[in-house]
């Protein structure tokens, strides 16, 4: 058998096992809208862990982190910096989000805004931001899958074909399984990724350099500037590091799927305890970074940094091992993509379309529209993945700049009585406009600061100012649950 056949059949096998786990988990539960989206609010510590931590193990971890270590050097450290901090933020925010979720039966992030601020237009705006930002994130996963199949087939299968296959897999995965199936598929995915990261993160530096220390020593001799910021870039220095770390740490749980994952928990305490220990899960990140750094000296002439991990695995190990790594990579792309698409589709149907365009829709009709949107959004992500050629990390930063703009509305909504609907609305729109202007005109970073962070500062300032100028409002969270039913 040729190495291509070996590698590709192992990848297919792993993907099949992951999908079977998802279908099996689903078959034991009746699927209504609440079961499909928030798993009936009955997840214990382990499932919540898998669902939330599952979201950090994406293609971004696998190919993006090593890719940036390879192509940018020092700035990749921002990934190690924001990981523990986002859980610190979640420690303070998510238990309160969960409490509101239980009391008002919230299913999505937009529901949260609707109940807190009593405006379906604000909620629709939040849903729209969520859907638009999720597209580059899902696009990132499809791109990653394309790269994996391209490398595993030794160039025989073109990335476009691979992405189309990935598209069919992801869409059918979401259709059938819902959030519970996805959480169970995460079990297999995380185990494989953990194993893959530990093994290649330690083995590759050993094989080529005789250890991690000698590997760093070799880089420090050949390219010392690569190991500190701004690395191989001109403008990603310390100010960029601080601003990006803050933006991503505040933004992480503003991703609609991560925010809504807190509704799946059985209690708020589960979320708080998970927040304490989850940073330990990101121990794979530095290992991925090690692989990227090793590739820098071993394969110095790669055209695309995102290929560095796969390329070095292919050069070092036999085809069956490339198959295992590729399979782990494929699942780490598909499972998060499934959650992202599922969230975006539900947001669109439930918080954007029904309240604004068709108030008479019933729950089963919303569920049907959401499933249709799964197809539409996956197609859109596929189109973008084929059309554009930005690095994986850059795609993620683009989405972060958008979702981070939801943070003031959530944090102030929970902890301040003075914040008003108009304030949050004005701040959010300002933030999005500033972020879009800076990024579309090629000013990210601007004066050394990440564009999303600058936008977030404007957002906070405008939210505060407008809130103070508008009359005091009673928070929706102080009204009884019967008075403010979420749509």
């Amino acid at each position, binding site marked *: 058998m040729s190495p291509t056949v070996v590698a590709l059949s192992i990848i297919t096998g792993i993907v099949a096992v992951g999908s079977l786990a998802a279908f099996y988990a689903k078959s034991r539960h009746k699927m209504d809208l609440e079961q499909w989206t928030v798993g009936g609010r009955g997840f214990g510590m382990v499932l919540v862990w898998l669902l939330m931590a599952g979201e950090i193990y994406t293609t971004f971890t696998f190919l993006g982190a090593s890719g940036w270590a390879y192509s940018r050097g020092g700035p990749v450290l921002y990934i190690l910096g924001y990981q523990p901090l986002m859980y610190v933020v979640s*420690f303070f925010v998510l238990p309160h989000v969960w409490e509101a979720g239980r009391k008002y039966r919230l299913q999505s992030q937009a529901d949260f805004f609707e109940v807190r601020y009593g405006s379906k237009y604000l909620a629709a705006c939040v849903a729209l931001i969520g859907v638009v930002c999720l597209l580059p994130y899902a696009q990132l996963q499809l791109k990653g899958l394309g790269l994996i199949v391209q490398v595993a087939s030794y160039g025989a299968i073109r990335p476009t074909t691979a992405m189309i296959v990935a598209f069919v897999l992801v869409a059918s995965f979401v259709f059938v399984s819902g959030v519970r199936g996805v959480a169970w598929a995460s079990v297999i995915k995380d185990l494989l990724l953990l194993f893959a990261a530990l093994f290649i993160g330690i083995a590759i530096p050993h094989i080529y350099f005789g250890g991690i220390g000698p590997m760093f020593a070799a880089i420090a001799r050949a390219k010392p500037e690569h190991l500190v910021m701004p690395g191989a870039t001109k403008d990603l220095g*310390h100010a960029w590091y601080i601003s990006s770390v803050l933006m991503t740490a505040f933004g992480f749980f503003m991703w609609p799927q991560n925010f809504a994952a807190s509704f799946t928990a059985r209690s708020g305490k589960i979320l708080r305890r998970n927040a304490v220990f989850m940073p330990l899960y990101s121990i794979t990140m530095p290992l991925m970074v090690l692989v990227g750094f090793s590739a820098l000296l071993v394969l110095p002439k790669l055209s695309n940094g995102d290929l560095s991990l796969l390329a070095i695995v292919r050069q070092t190990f036999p085809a069956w091992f490339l198959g295992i790594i590729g399979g782990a990579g494929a699942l780490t792309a598909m499972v998060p993509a499934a959650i992202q698409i599922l969230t975006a589709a539900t947001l669109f149907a439930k918080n954007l379309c029904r309240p604004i365009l068709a108030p008479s829709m019933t729950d089963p009709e919303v569920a049907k529209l959401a499933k249709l949107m799964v197809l539409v959004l996956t197609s859109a992500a596929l189109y973008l993945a084929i059309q554009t050629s930005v690095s994986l990390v850059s795609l993620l930063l683009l989405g972060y700049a958008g979702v981070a703009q939801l943070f003031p509305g959530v944090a102030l909504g929970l902890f301040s009585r003075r914040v008003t609907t108009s304030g949050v609305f004005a701040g959010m729109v300002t933030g999005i406009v500033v972020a879009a202007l800076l990024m579309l005109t090629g000013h990210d970073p601007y004066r050394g600061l990440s564009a999303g962070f600058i936008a977030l500062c404007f957002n906070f300032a405008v939210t505060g100012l407008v809130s103070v100028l508008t009359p005091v409002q009673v928070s929706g969270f102080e009204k009884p649950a019967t008075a403010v039913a979420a749509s």
Partner: protein
Amino acid sequence: MKRPSLGAILLGLIPFIAVCFSVSLWDRISPTVFGLPFNFFWLVAWIVLTPLCMWGAYRFELRRESGTENQKGGER
């Protein structure tokens, strides 16, 4: 909503200071620790130290929550 306790907030600030705001103090190669450049070692160390801080914060919140429950009991 109830605001978090001061102790928990202070403990939560420690990781922010250590891995974010102080970047210019530790972003260098030497001294290497266990063969790792100092910046890399520092960040890996805080992946382990952050849970310690947050465990402390968790204890603070837990103690305060049981405190407020007792108060409620007293009011009844």
